[in-house]
């Protein structure tokens, strides 16, 4: 529960984000702020065509240019491993996914615009760019494979000649008995069908990617500074699969990172390149992505084309759900790519509803486009969008109230085992819907619609629910589902002699406010002031092996590890206190940083105990080691299931098709909450991205595989005036049943839960004017809405 006094410390209080002081006053330390003595700069020559054979590449003239240190082509990386995919999906026939080699530099074939063709290392960046222009490339053009359906058609050009086709896998999940599923549809009283596109997005974090590789000849050690959400994962993938280096010789540091949204989870070619090149050139090698490069080299998100069918009985109960999706992988498999449309998508297809039969079919497809991978929500927004749009359409077809239809089909008994492999431990969807109706002032909508109509505007109301599987992830479950790594996390709590604490965490903060919220937990557990606790993150040389930050996992998984490590600290500190007070440690109580012998007035302070731990006199060395530092690893027993209900109200200008969002309300159940202000911020940001997807953002390719929206001139990012003031409520709290803090995670909810509400609202607005529009594909740009209204 939020604390009454936001300045009070501990769990549930809202202290301001301490990291913001340095971010807002120019004292941050981002990777591009780092310059290493004697560093050289790399410029990547990137493909400007989508598909071609590299007949020859002549770098001789370029090598003679001023300042050039070394030029690398695909041949220089022939002996080096490709970039690995972290998830192996087994298809419906029991076969593994098709997995092409993913080279650091194109090896004979260009497969997407933006792929690295050569890398020029020079004394200055401008010299590297000059030399890159002198590289002579002889390309043999090949037809670009862009459209997914065409890519799967018989006889299509193949993106990878050595694969059997452009199909990565053909996957079925849930009820895989086609006959039984069909029978459910045949016997339904009503079936609603919807075809929709989940638009491709570019993450566009404020800070573009940067990498600096260093090599020390003296110690044979490498250091890579990189913009990553998970430095340990980068080190593991790069060392074990790409460069073949022992991990103890490699340190990966991700200092301040200016946003990731998923796009900085993955191991990228540029990271391996800079590390490798540092040794090959005998110089540190630095790369800073331009915004233009980011558009064609950061992994994109979403890009699903789906058909969803919902069967209902005569009483409007959902009886079966079937979806068929094509999901774009782009030209290569990025780190998490194959898990997104399968296990992060199919497992969520039951939503908040007790539909007994759910079948999910997914075909993943190679195309000559930038690789596609996880983006805030990753698979779960795609599932939610399909489900919540088809329910809305069904309500319209049946003349049912969309809120009542949802309520009627809610899961109400927990734990609940879905037909798509998950067990929801807890939740209360009725409560979040009740709360939403109140926050969104559903009762006042009719009056607001009348007011809009008086101004010549159409007003629409749209609602949706969402559920996500977060706290990624229970290793045994994801292992069964194809993850090639366990997804636990770790924390080391180091108490210093005078009682201050450094917590070394595997999670990485790049906007989430961990530096504020994590100390709140430790401070509360011990009863000391938050200012005595700092976290350390983002450096494999300092923090224990952890999997980083994504999938709304940090507080649920890494935070749990931190709690476990702090419990160990407290247990040991009690022993020391017991020794100091000559009592039994079973009798020691810790409250407000004071250790007391139960039932007596004997007590010692936290600082006395910590000092004793390090500089002991008269210490029972046979029974107790000195020092106060503990590590814990935590592997969750289940996912966590944040869920909620969102409502959007729009005005549509019928003359231009322009949509403006007038109200947006969110009722979320995140379980227990550490810092309500930070949670509000996370929801606001997620909503902004969801609204961006729904109204503005679109990574559009032409038939030749050229990205049409390759800059902010054509790729519409949401601006402050595109979004309303939000009504956000997270007072409905059903604590997670299986982690020590009862937390569920909140980072992705906004992005997952908002697009369907926006589209539902726009359809409602158009229908209110008698328009027979049942669906518009995102983004709902003015041009698209106008076109839908004008047939």
């Amino acid at each position, binding site marked *: 529960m939020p604390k009454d006094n936001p300045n009070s410390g501990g769990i549930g209080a809202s202290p301001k984000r301490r990291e913001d002081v340095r971010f807002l006053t120019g004292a941050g330390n981002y990777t591009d702020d780092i310059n290493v003595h004697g560093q050289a700069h790399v410029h990547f020559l990137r493909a400007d065509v989508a598909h071609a054979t590299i007949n020859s590449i002549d770098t001789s003239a370029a090598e003679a240019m001023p300042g050039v240190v070394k030029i690398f082509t695909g041949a220089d990386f022939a002996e080096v491993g490709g970039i690995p995919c972290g998830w192996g999906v087994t298809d419906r026939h029991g076969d593994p996914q098709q997995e092409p080699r993913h080279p650091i530099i194109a090896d004979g074939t260009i497969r997407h615009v933006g792929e690295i063709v050569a890398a020029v290392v020079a004394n200055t960046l401008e010299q590297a760019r000059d030399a890159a222009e002198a590289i002579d490339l002889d390309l043999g053009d090949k037809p670009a494979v862009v459209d997914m359906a065409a890519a799967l058609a018989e006889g299509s050009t193949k993106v990878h000649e050595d694969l059997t086709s452009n199909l990565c896998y053909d996957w079925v999940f849930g009820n895989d008995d086609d006959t039984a599923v069909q029978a459910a549809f045949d016997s339904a009283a009503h079936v609603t069908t919807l075809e929709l596109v989940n638009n491709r997005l570019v993450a566009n974090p404020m800070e573009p990617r940067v990498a600096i590789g260093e090599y020390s000849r003296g110690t044979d050690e490498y250091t890579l500074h990189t913009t990553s959400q998970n430095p340990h994962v980068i080190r593991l993938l790069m060392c074990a699969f790409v460069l073949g280096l022992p991990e103890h010789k490699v340190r990966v540091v991700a200092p301040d990172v200016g946003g990731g949204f998923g796009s900085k989870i993955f191991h990228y070619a540029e990271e391996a390149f800079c590390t490798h090149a540092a040794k090959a050139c005998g110089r540190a090698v630095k790369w800073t992505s331009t915004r233009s490069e980011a558009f064609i080299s950061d992994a994109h998100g979403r890009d699903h084309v789906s058909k969803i069918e919902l069967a209902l009985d005569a009483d409007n109960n959902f009886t079966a759900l079937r979806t068929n999706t094509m999901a774009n992988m782009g030209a290569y498999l990025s780190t998490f790519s194959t898990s997104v449309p399968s296990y992060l998508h199919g497992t969520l297809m039951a939503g908040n509803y007790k539909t007994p039969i759910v079948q999910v079919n997914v075909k993943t497809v190679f195309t000559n486009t930038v690789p596609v991978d996880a983006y805030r929500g990753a698979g779960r927004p795609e599932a939610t969008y399909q489900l919540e749009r088809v329910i809305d359409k069904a309500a319209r077809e049946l003349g049912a109230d969309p809120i009542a239809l949802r309520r009627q089909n809610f899961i109400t008994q927990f734990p609940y085992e879905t037909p798509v492999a998950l067990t929801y431990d807890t939740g209360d969807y009725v409560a979040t819907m009740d709360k939403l109706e109140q926050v969104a002032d559903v009762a006042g909508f009719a009056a607001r619609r009348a007011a809009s109509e008086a101004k010549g505007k159409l007003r629409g109301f749209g609602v949706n629910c969402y559920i996500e599987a977060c706290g990624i992830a229970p290793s045994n479950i994801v292992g069964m589902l194809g993850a090639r790594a366990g997804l636990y996390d770790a924390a080391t709590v180091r108490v210093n002699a005078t009682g201050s604490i450094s917590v070394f965490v595997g999670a990485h903060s790049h906007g989430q406010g961990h530096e504020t919220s994590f100390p709140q937990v430790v401070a509360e557990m011990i009863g000391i002031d938050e200012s005595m606790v700092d976290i350390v993150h983002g450096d494999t040389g300092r923090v224990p092996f952890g999997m980083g930050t994504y999938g709304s996992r940090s507080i649920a998984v890494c935070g749990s590890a931190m709690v476990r490590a702090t419990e160990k600290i407290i247990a040991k500190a009690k022993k020391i206190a017991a020794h100091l007070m000559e009592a039994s440690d079973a009798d020691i109580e810790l409250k407000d940083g004071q250790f007391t012998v139960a039932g007596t007035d004997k007590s010692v302070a936290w600082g006395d105990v910590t000092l004793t731990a390090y500089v002991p006199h008269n210490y029972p060395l046979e029974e107790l080691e000195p020092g106060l530092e503990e590590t814990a690893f935590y592997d969750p027993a289940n996912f966590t299931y944040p869920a909620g209900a969102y409502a959007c109200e729009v005005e549509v200008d019928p003359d231009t098709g322009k949509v403006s969002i007038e109200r947006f309300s969110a009722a979320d159940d995140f379980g227990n909450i550490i810092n309500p202000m930070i949670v509000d911020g996370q929801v606001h940001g997620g909503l902004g991205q969801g609204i961006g997807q729904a109204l503005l953002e679109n990574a559009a390719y032409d038939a030749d595989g050229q990205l049409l929206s390759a800059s902010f001139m054509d790729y519409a990012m949401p601006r402050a005036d595109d979004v309303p003031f939000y009504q956000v409520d997270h007072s409905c709290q059903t604590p997670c049943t299986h982690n020590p803090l009862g937390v569920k995670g909140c980072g992705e909810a906004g992005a997952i839960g908002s697009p369907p509400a926006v589209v539902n609202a726009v359809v409602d607005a158009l229908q209110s004017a008698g328009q027979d529009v049942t669906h518009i594909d995102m983004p709902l740009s*003015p041009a698209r809405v*106008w076109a839908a209204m004008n047939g």
Partner: protein
Amino acid sequence: MYEFEFETPATVAEAVAALAEEEAQALGGGQTLIPTLKQRLAMPSKLVSLAGIAEMKGVSIADGVLTIGGGATHADVAAEACPPLAALAAGIGDPAVRNRGTIGGSLANNDPAADYPAAMLALKSTIVTDRREIAGDDFFQGLFETALDEGEIITGVRCDIPEAAHYQKFDQPASRFALVGVFVAKYADGVRVGVTGASEEGAFRWREAEAALSASFAPDALEGLSLDAGSMMGDLHGSKDYRAHLVAVMTKRAVAAIS
């Protein structure tokens, strides 16, 4: 960027002399040119900055004529020009762009989605250069093409102040340049309608609308008028049909805002 020389003349005459060199190029606010250079899409041997030329600054209103220096920034125009043009300038880009970008640079560039060209066509403008005066109607010659010669500098513009005017802009969602922008100006001797963002030929005057509005200045007068969608631009942000439709809607709204 490629390497270039940089000159900072203090007078128009010095600037003209500096621009005489082949491959020399004028630099206004740099809001178009600098990004172009950063992308290595242009390779001038020398940049001649017009920013320090006092005689190209300033905005003044006298005897029914609005005079704006070619080096006046969008922010200057927003602060000092007559209200309809000031509002147009205030809607260009963001504060950083408005504090650097100049009217001379915008007109010389003649981006088909830029705002000023619509106004210059509607406001009976004269484009003043270092060597001559060019009627606004003759100045814009298609996409990114103008009547300017090599090395010619826009030193200022003059506009006849209308009885009333209004600029109605519909933003392209990503760039917020004009997807369509319509400037309607009402003079005693008739109405002029300048349109930007829409046509494949660049900014143009919508003569049918001018005739209809000159006969009857009311939104209704435009009823039934439509543009040939075939000559409109079509792209990611709007089809030809949509743009043709938007021109009519924006024109009506501009007229409604005045009347």
